[in-house]
């Protein structure tokens, strides 16, 4: 197919994308969120063991805007959202682009559970704005966005869908493999799933649960087997955050990846952060869902290979 025809075939998905962005902004503005823009090019990315920031000169392109947005939270901005481009090296597949669009929002005075209903309402708002209603089809699966969505702990998900228990998966270092291959494809069908309460090691920036100290207050949204968003109660203990970053850097080093400078100004700001929760949602994936697209390539004007 010629490049022009390929683009033309994506016209509807690109229109859906524009409508989704428009509706998303309207949703947050109606709830007193401030839309912000923070720099895409940053001097120190978040140390995370499995994410590769893309170098840009002596700095990096942001893998997510969370460090800057949390500094804004610490400075007293209580409700903020941002739609921004993010970059993650080496991530390419039918659901991954090395350059993608992330929607992040943060709310003070709220924990991860408080964010869950807001996620439900966002999807309903967008789906109404698109004129779809709550029932839709995604890749042959019937989806019903009606609330309340299913709330499932990671432990329950392993019990229900996996061939091994959570405990054993952790012991054998197969947590992510089992989650991705055995559990994820079955989540969010027909009702979206809010998968929550991750083992502490899998929530590097999330607050430790007060009632279950082995768990992180983190959740993910799955609809029709598609992972859409990752949210958590923010960790506000600077010392613990520094320790976790150091651990992430150690894991990076053990896998032959360069360790990164500590994000000093972010660590300084942590003690001033209010109790809060934040979430990152993949906009391209949201467009995939509403446009019923099989590949993330179908919802962007150009995939990197087409440039």
């Amino acid at each position: 197919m010629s490049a022009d025809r390929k683009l033309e075939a994506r016209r509807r998905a690109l229109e859906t994308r524009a409508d989704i962005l428009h509706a998303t902004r309207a949703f947050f503005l109606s709830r007193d969120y401030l839309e912000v823009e923070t720099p895409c090019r940053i001097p120190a990315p978040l140390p995370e063991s499995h994410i590769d920031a893309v170098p840009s000169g002596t700095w990096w392109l942001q893998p997510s805007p969370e460090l800057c947005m949390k500094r804004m939270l610490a400075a007293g901005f209580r409700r903020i959202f941002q739609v921004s481009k993010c970059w993650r090296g080496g991530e390419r597949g039918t659901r991954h682009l090395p350059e993608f669009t992330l929607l992040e929002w943060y709310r003070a005075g709220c924990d991860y559970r408080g964010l869950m209903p807001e996620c439900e309402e966002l999807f309903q708002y967008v789906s109404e704005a698109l004129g779809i209603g709550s029932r839709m089809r995604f890749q042959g699966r019937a989806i019903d966005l009606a609330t309340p969505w299913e709330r499932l702990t990671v432990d329950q998900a392993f019990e229900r869908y996996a061939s091994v228990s959570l405990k054993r998966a952790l012991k054998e270092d197969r947590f992510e493999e089992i989650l991705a291959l055995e559990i994820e494809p079955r989540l969010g069908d027909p009702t979206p799933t809010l998968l929550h309460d991750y083992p502490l090691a899998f929530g590097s920036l999330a607050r430790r649960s007060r009632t279950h100290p082995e768990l992180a207050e983190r959740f993910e949204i799955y609809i029709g087997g598609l992972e859409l968003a990752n949210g958590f109660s923010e960790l506000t203990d600077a010392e613990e955050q520094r320790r976790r970053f150091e651990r992430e850097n150690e894991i990076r080093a053990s896998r032959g990846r360069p360790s990164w400078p500590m994000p000093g100004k972010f660590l300084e700001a942590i003690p001033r952060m209010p109790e809060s929760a934040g979430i990152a949602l993949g906009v391209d994936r949201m467009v995939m869902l509403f446009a019923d697209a099989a590949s993330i390539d179908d919802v962007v004007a150009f995939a990197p290979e087409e440039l």
Partner: protein
Amino acid sequence: MYNASDLRKNLRIMLDDEPYIVVDFQFVKPGKGQSLYRCRLRNMLSGNQMDRTFREVDTFQPADTQEKNMQYLYREGDAFHFMDNESFEQIALTGEQIGEAKNFLIENMECKVLLFRDRPIDITLPNFVDVIVTEAPPWIKGDTVSGNYKPVIVETGYKVSVPPFIEQGQKIRIDTRTGEYLTRVKE
């Protein structure tokens, strides 16, 4: 040596001391977790397929294979004989190893033979071959009912759809990757 992030369709790697080719590939990454590389692999010796998931820490040796330019000589039962262009050594492959390619093999044709530790396992044809049409229904002028294409048989016995103006004895070009008619060849 390859890393898991090098995995892609058609990459040839060694696993358990046997050569495999990646026939299907999927990148999977759970939220903030480590990358997983789901592959469907075909054993290049047995033809059997299997699914395997690799992690970012996995590494592989390239398949211990080499390609040599050879000339197709003749067929004898199920044995297809080839000659190495440099050493003039002759080797044979079975019909099963040749697969679809047997539809396009013409004597004296140059092709690439894939060897695993000096043992022939597969061949790659040129992308285009010119073959003579040996059987074709006559072209009935004004015949619009039967559609645009008609089936013909070429010298290798392969059946292919061609435009109605192609006649018996003419030479046509076929794309060996798709098996489809491309154009009429004028001599």
